[in-house]
């Protein structure tokens, strides 16, 4: 779920007519001072981070004067709470509390229905709230009536707020939403003091107004690479690319890049890596038949993680998806980057023979060993192989140079869905283009009268997706030992700055 910050969640509550404390979000101490002054000096300052124990870790503080608000703000801003960098603060009026309630909305995955929750005991640190919480199972198609809601909450005013909570959660496709506490304030009105809303990752595309940076439940503030990875994934529905950095510096083991293929197989492989003394610096999954372009970008992003000493690719072992697509994507990244780390690729399933052949053919162009295994080798075996390769550290100092592509001469290029392909026609005047043309599995290439490779279809169709970005043409040219084909899949922002 994509978690919303408190201030954003509260803006939504206000739009649906639920009262929230007066206040503003600020990004520097000076603004905190100004807002506090407008509120009369006395205020509460709340770090805008995703942490369940914000209050006990110094993320919520009270100020008696605007000057004090400035001091507190300067202390919190830029600090880390639960490993989350605090970059924004909510400065709010202090609300007098007479009574605190808990209001919630969840999706019950067993009943497969939305459920409204109400407890007369709100606030934090209520251990046994579960026992006092009343549940109303709702329909996702019909808003519950006030009469229905009153079966779990007798107060008409609170029932109306519960109905609004249902409405906003339904409309924003919330995985969960809670107001805790809703307080009865001195002037007898109800005010939402704190609020958490998580939106379904898969519905984020329907709620652009939420401005969600990374639609993934990461458990932490997105890192630079996580943001880059989400840009790769966001609008490309061909297969799935999942990327999470794992910040476990204190754990023992050799730091490696981990690349899974298929959710369940990835998780099993992650466990196998840890069992064999490896410590994945990331959890990556490319699955659901992604194009080689997506796999290539995943591999490039993994390789840019600092300090990894090996690369482990392992999926379910018997995958339906074609393994040579995976092999090409990863190999292209390795051939371009030539990282000084060994790799073990467990490529089991359809097309595994071809995949293994690709790895064997191109290993000689790399400075460190790269090994491929198939469906009859377990994830544990492959993880232990990688560990041995890392420990042996056999560098191949005379690795061969891949035939280079030259931008000199006559160039022919066309766009693909997420990149471009360039043929150097001057080179094809000397070598036969048949290998490249025939390598294309979707037959969108042909030879023109001079025998030079060109598109056989409208370039606009190639860009719309007729070119499936499988890298077959580029690998065919390399296999024949000439560099007449260049495929470019840019990753915006990867080259700038260092990891993290």
């Amino acid at each position, binding site marked *: 779920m994509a978690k919303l910050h408190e201030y954003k969640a509260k803006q939504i509550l206000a739009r649906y007519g639920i009262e929230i404390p007066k206040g503003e979000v600020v990004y520097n101490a000076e603004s905190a001072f100004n807002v506090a002054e407008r509120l009369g000096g006395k205020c509460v300052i709340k770090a805008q981070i995703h942490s369940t124990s914000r209050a006990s870790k110094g993320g919520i503080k009270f100020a008696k004067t605007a000057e004090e608000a400035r001091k507190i703000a300067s202390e919190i801003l830029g600090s880390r709470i639960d490993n989350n960098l605090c970059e924004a603060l909510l400065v709010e009026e202090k609300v007098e509390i007479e009574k605190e309630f808990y209001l919630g909305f969840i999706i019950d995955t067993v009943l497969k229905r939305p459920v409204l929750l109400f407890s007369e005991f709100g606030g934090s640190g209520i251990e046994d709230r579960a026992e006092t919480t009343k549940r109303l199972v709702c329909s996702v198609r019909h808003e519950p009536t006030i009469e229905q809601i009153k079966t779990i909450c007798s107060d008409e005013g609170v029932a109306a707020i519960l109905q609004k909570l249902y409405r906003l959660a339904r409309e924003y496709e919330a995985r969960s939403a809670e107001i805790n506490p809703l307080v009865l304030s001195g002037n007898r009105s109800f005010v939402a003091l704190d609020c958490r809303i998580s939106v379904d990752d898969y519905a984020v595309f329907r709620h652009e107004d939420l401005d969600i940076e990374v639609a993934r439940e990461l458990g932490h503030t997105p890192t630079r690479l996580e943001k880059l990875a989400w840009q790769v994934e966001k609008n490309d529905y061909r297969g799935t690319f999942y990327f999470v950095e794992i910040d476990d510096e204190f754990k023992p083991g050799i730091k490696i890049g981990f690349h899974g293929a298929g959710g369940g197989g990835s998780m099993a492989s992650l*466990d196998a890596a840890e069992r064999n003394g490896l410590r994945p610096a990331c959890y990556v999954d490319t699955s659901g038949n992604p194009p080689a372009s997506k796999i290539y970008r995943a591999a490039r992003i993994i390789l840019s993680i600092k300090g990894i000493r090996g690369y482990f690719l392992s999926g379910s072992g018997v*995958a339906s998806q074609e393994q040579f697509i995976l092999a090409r994507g990863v190999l292209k990244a390795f051939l371009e980057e030539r990282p000084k780390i060994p790799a073990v690729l467990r490529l089991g399933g359809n097309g595994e023979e071809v995949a293994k052949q690709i790895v064997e053919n191109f290993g000689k162009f790399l400075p460190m060993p790269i090994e491929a295994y198939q469906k009859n080798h377990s994830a544990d075996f492959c993880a232990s192989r990688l560990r041995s390769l890392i420990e042996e550290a056999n560098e191949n100092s005379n690795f061969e140079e891949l035939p280079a592509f030259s931008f000199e001469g006559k160039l022919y290029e066309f766009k693909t869905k997420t990149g471009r392909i360039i043929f150097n026609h001057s080179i094809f005047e000397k070598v036969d283009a048949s290998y490249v043309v025939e390598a294309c599995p979707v037959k969108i290439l042909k030879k023109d009268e001079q025998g030079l490779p060109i598109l056989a279809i409208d370039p606009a169709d190639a860009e719309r997706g007729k070119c499936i970005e499988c890298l077959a043409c580029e690998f065919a040219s390399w296999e024949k030992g000439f560099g007449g084909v260049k495929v470019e899949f840019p990753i915006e922002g990867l080259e700038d700055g260092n990891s993290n």
Partner: protein
Amino acid sequence: MAILIDETKSVIVQGITGREGSARTKLMLEYGTRVIGGCTPGRGGAQVHGLPVFDTVEEAVRNLGRVDVSVIFVPAPKVKEAAMEAIGAGIPLLALIADRVPLYDVLEICEVADEKGAKFVGPNTVGIISPGKAVLGMIGGSAEAARSWFRTGCVGIVSRSGGLSASTGYYISQTGLGVSTICHVGGDAVVGLTMPQVVEMFELDDQTELIVVIGEIGGLQEEQIADLVERGKIKKPILAYIGGRSAQTGTRYSHAGAIIEAGQGTWQSKVGRLRSAGVEVVEQIGEIPEKARKMLKAS
């Protein structure tokens, strides 16, 4: 007898003219599934692999007669509409293949399917295969691979992971055992047919003698299976594996359902719950075939 799919069931494909729809129709036909037609709005009258294409499911049903299953190969944002159409046309079983279907769309499909007595597998399922009989979706990737990977036999497999569904079926077949049906329920937080429901189907299936459950962190499906066993609803032996032992709380591991929330659905709690109900749990996926063989010998 196998469950959910066999060679007698008539099947249509929604989105049959698309890249995936067309390729997987070929796989299903070549494996022996009785695919009788398909639909794509605006493409009525066309043919795909010799099968008639209709504009709507309604029209397909009117022209083709009884349809038992619709396999839906449309992109995630359009799955709800397609599923509603199939349910509306009275098709009793759907398979929703797409990944990233919005949760509220799935919830709506659930409610309507319940009202009309329809069932669905998925979303985000690679499908179902009853080896030697028929396949729905894309398990195996090609008919040839599916034939060489899976043997017919007495082990029923239900899984929340597509890849591990296929690999477990393969490794089981390699040891000389065989498979009655493999059902991938999908990796999402809310799915149509759940693992406990499929386990109940295996219990009633005369071909199945051992049930293999491939679970993972998150949700309560594995705990529900433990409940069924404790209440005496399942008499057949169950062998389980739970993925995600090294997972961290609050982080999702690819599958939308694979997340530990509020301390619920951890690896430890699932394994503990299953074991206390008397279910055999292995810690490595590779231990499954040997263990399965031993359990079958003993029973």
